[in-house]
Each structure stands twice: as C-alpha cells, then as structure tokens.
C-alpha cells in the first residue's frame, strides 16, 4: 500500500512538472516519465500486459511522435522567449495550488461509496478475452489504424 502511495505521488508530481515546465522537450520527457510510472502502477494492479503496452507504446512511441512534431516546427526566438515565459508563468501559476487544494478537499470529504462488488469469477486469461470475448475490438482497432493512416496521407497530400 505504501509503495502504491509513493508511486501515485511520483506520478502526480511528474504530471504537474510536465504541465508546468517551460520547454516543450522537457515537457515531453516528463510525459514519458509519467507513462513509465503509470506502467509500474498498472503492473502492481495485477495487469502486466497492459503495463508492458503502456511502457513500450506510451513511454516509448508517443514521445517520439511528440519530438518529431516539435522538431518540424520552429524554435521560439531569443527576443520572444522572456515574454513567452512570463505569459506561461501567469497562466500556469495556479496549477500547483489548485492541485494541493483539490487534494486536501478530496482527501477530507471523499466518501467511500457503498456498493457491492461482483464476486470474482474464475481466473481469466487476457489472451482468451482478447481473441474470443472482445474479438470485435480487434476489428475496430484495425479500422482505426487504417483511418489514422488515411488521415495522415490526406493531411500531407501535395497540392497539384
């Protein structure tokens, strides 16, 4: 329980740092770190396959997509940098206070809901669930991937 709590604190701190930091590259690194910590939390919640996906895809691939996007856009000039930093600080300075206040309020007044959980069934294998129970999800995933590929092709189509 204590390890879970520590991991959750690290997760939230990484998320706040991701949002607050001024440089985009640092923000992307913070997001990757958040994903890695989330993978550890998911692993501790008895979901190793989802943790592996989270670690490899969300902490590995998505930062690459972000960095590629950022590298194709222009750098902010040295003259604009102090103004942009000041503007950001004004807009984001409330976040730590909001998080701390919301955390205190929630921990003080959060009532544990009284609901009955369903009885745990027989231990299921995630592969059986994916291939037999949720096989339409796989079809949906293929369609979404194709739609994404089509969307990117349309976006980068050269004008004649």
């Amino acid at each position, binding site marked *: 329980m204590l390890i*879970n709590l520590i991991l959750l604190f690290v997760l939230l701190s990484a998320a706040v740092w991701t*949002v607050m930091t001024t440089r985009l590259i640092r923000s992307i690194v913070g997001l990757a770190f958040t994903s890695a910590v989330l993978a550890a939390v998911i692993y501790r919640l008895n*979901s190793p396959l989802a943790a592996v996906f989270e670690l490899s895809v969300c902490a590995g691939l*998505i930062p690459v997509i972000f960095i*590629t996007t950022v590298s194709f856009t222009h750098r902010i000039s040295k003259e604009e940098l102090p103004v942009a930093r000041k503007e950001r600080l004004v807009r984001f300075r409330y976040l730590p206070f909001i998080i701390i206040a919301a955390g205190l309020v929630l921990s003080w007044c959060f009532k544990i809901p009284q609901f009955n959980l369903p009885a745990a069934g027989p231990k299921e294998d995630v592969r059986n*669930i994916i291939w037999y129970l949720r096989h339409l*999800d796989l079809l949906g995933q293929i369609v979404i991937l194709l739609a*994404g590929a089509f969307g990117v092709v349309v976006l980068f189509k050269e004008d004649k």
Partner: protein
Amino acid sequence: MSPDLAGLFSYFMIFIILLFICGAYCIAATFNMVRAMIGLELLIKAATLLIILAGYLCGRSALAQAIVITLIVIEIVVMVVAGGIILWAFRHNESIDPRKLSNLKG
C-alpha cells in the same frame, strides 16, 4: 467491499481526479497545440488508471487489460493524426498557436 479494497479505491480515486484536473488545466490554459496534446495524454492516462483500477477491484483484470490495450491503440492514432494536424497548421500559418489560425474557412 472489504476495508482494504475500499481504502485502495478511495486513495486511487483521489489521485485519478487530480491527474484529470492536471490534464484539463493544461488544455484549458495553453495556447500551444503540442501542449494541448500533452494535456489530452494526461486525461487519457487518468482514464487508463481508472479502467485498470475497476478491473482490479472487480476481479476482472483480464477484461480491463483488453480494454486498455484498445484504448492505447486509439490513443496512438489520435496522437499521430493530431501531430499531422499541428504540422499542417504550422505549414500554413507558421505558428502552432490556435489563435493565429486565421485562414480557416467558415
């Protein structure tokens, strides 16, 4: 619900809500489209953790994992297309500030 599971649920829920606030604030306060994507990522992470927690509490971790894998695939596609839209906007406007998207029709 046993006291152990109830305690686990309550403190996980608090952190999930805080993570959600963090992502929503990032989207609401920024004028940079890449940062808006990062905020969206944080919202998706909160949703992922909530699904995994629900599966753990109900003893259906396998089902929760299957749903999270689908969610991750959707997340990837959304991020790739959003990245494409940002690059498209940058090519046409020389900026990734949504306030400067002045050449849109409509």
